[in-house]
């Protein structure tokens, strides 16, 4: 092998599909058939996963912290709700994209405020924007329905063919398809030169500029893309639950998202997905055991995760699966562990 082809091979190392990844998606798909009574919670997890993947794009790759990611979720949710309520766009997939674009416009507009300054400034600016939007949504209740939210949303069939059913089956597979398509896109983006340049900016913005990377432009681009993803997640929320209320902008929503990524890890795309599953499961588990104090236990779990270290936890959790995979498919196929810690 020549040095150049060797370089090409190793440069694509991360971009190749691992057995673990294929297994992950097959398991997710299988869940749709194995647990027909759990569509609602599983759809909820998919939405949260997409939303978390959006935050991972800016936090895990570009190093932009945000406490106001619900702003984009909310705009997507209301956009989808209004489109359906007033019959502007009846076809859900098209409405989904338009709602995502609405959030994207907001993302682009606010990106100029966010990319300036350091982490603390960013936390405050993002938080402020989300609070601002929540207040605006409450003020203009003639459009948003105020504290009652948008009511009486009726969703038309997907592509005019597949109606949303009361068990949430269509909603689940619809959400899964959206998540998977957007995951594929994100996967493509993070393994491109553009994605690599984001990681470089996160690591060392000074050096990134010194090799000719237009740092601000790249940050604006990824922030805008992340806003699109979050908007889609919000639109999915409205479309699958047929409600949009003020809590789509709530601070808790943005804060939960951070917890999801603390659990799942950042910078390898699966962090948001795994984190969403674990977070919702823990929430379910603890609220069944102690309906009043479940937040205490979630908090305790988070402290343990931070103290023990997520990488070590991942190694423990993946120990047995990797042992099996190694037997079947050889050493190289083991399930990826996040490469960077935030």
């Amino acid at each position, binding site marked *: 092998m020549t040095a150049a082809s060797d*370089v090409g091979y190793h440069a694509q190392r991360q971009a190749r599909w691992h057995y673990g990844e294929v297994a992950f998606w097959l398991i997710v798909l299988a869940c749709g058939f194995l647990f027909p009574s759990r569509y609602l919670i599983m759809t909820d997890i998919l939405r949260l996963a997409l939303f978390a993947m959006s935050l991972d794009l800016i936090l895990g790759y570009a190093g932009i912290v945000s406490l106001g990611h619900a702003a984009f979720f909310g705009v997507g949710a209301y956009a989808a709700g209004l489109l359906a309520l007033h019959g502007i766009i009846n076809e859900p997939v098209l409405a989904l994209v338009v709602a995502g674009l609405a959030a994207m416009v907001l993302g682009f507009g606010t990106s100029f405020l966010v990319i300036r300054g350091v982490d603390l400034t960013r936390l405050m600016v993002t938080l402020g924007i989300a609070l601002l939007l929540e207040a605006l949504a409450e003020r203009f209740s003639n459009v948003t329905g105020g504290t009652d939210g948008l009511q009486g949303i009726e969703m038309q069939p997907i592509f005019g063919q597949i109606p949303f059913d009361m068990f949430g089956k269509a909603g689940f597979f619809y959400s899964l398809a959206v998540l998977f398509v957007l995951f594929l896109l994100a996967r493509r983006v993070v393994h*491109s030169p*553009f994605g*690599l340049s984001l990681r470089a900016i996160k*690591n060392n913005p000074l*050096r990134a500029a*010194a*090799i000719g990377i237009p740092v601000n432009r*790249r940050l604006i681009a990824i922030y805008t893309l992340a806003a699109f993803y979050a908007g889609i997640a919000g639109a999915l929320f409205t479309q699958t639950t047929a409600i949009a209320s003020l809590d789509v902008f709530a601070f808790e929503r943005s804060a939960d998202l951070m917890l999801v990524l603390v659990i799942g890890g950042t910078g390898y795309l699966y962090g948001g997905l795994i984190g969403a599953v674990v977070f919702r499961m823990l929430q379910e588990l603890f609220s069944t055991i102690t309906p009043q104090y479940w937040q205490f236990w979630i908090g305790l779990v988070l402290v343990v995760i931070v103290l023990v270290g997520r990488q070590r936890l991942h190694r423990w959790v993946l120990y047995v699966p990797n042992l099996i995979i190694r037997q079947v498919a050889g050493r190289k196929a083991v399930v990826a562990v996040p*490469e960077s810690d935030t």
Partner: protein
Amino acid sequence: MTIALETRNLEKQFGGLRVTRDLSLKVEQGARHALIGPNGAGKTTVINQLAGVLKPNSGRILLEGQDITDLPVHKRVLRGLSRTFQINQLYPDLTALETIGLAVSERLGHGGDWWRRMGTRGDVNGEIAELLTRFHLLDVMNEQTVTLPYGKQRLLEIAVAIAAKPRVLLLDEPAAGVPESERHDILAVVGALPREVTVLLIEHDMDLVFSFADRISVLVSGALLTEGPPEQVARDPQVKAVYLGEEAVNV
């Protein structure tokens, strides 16, 4: 001779402190020009202004006759001005392969490409392989930068700057902190730079300066003290007094 890089009456103040005083410097094309001076003379401040990290209070900077004073850092790189850092400025989480691959991609205009995967362009791969080989990094290309020994990191630091294919290269103490055993690699790499690349070198190591440079400017307290070929600067009594004398004491 054409002038590759020039400053005209450059001034920089931090509060009341004048760190660059009316500095007019001309670096000829293809030159091996060294900028020396005692600690605190403001050498790195000059480099930072040339590279665009700091904005001068007044004065102009010209690259190949074009005024670049108001250009941001990344645009100067695209115009052919690249630099290394006195203290390594690398990407701890990225591998040597990724670090160089990114620099090459950016230069060839693929940096904004969000669709095609890294490693699928033959011309980029070829150039990465060539650089990794030239800088003795091929065997460690898949290791994260943070895990590399310091000498290798130093080589990577220079390789990244070279990957931008500069016509003017600013070297900020390339051998700083490198253990004796690994100095040879660095010096060989610096010495082997093609002649068409103009080099402005900042260095404390007098052996390196006098073996490498064909022209030396001496900076004291932010102002130009003297300038000339190495023999002349070495004989200059003023220079001996402020700089070489101090060096001799250190030895």
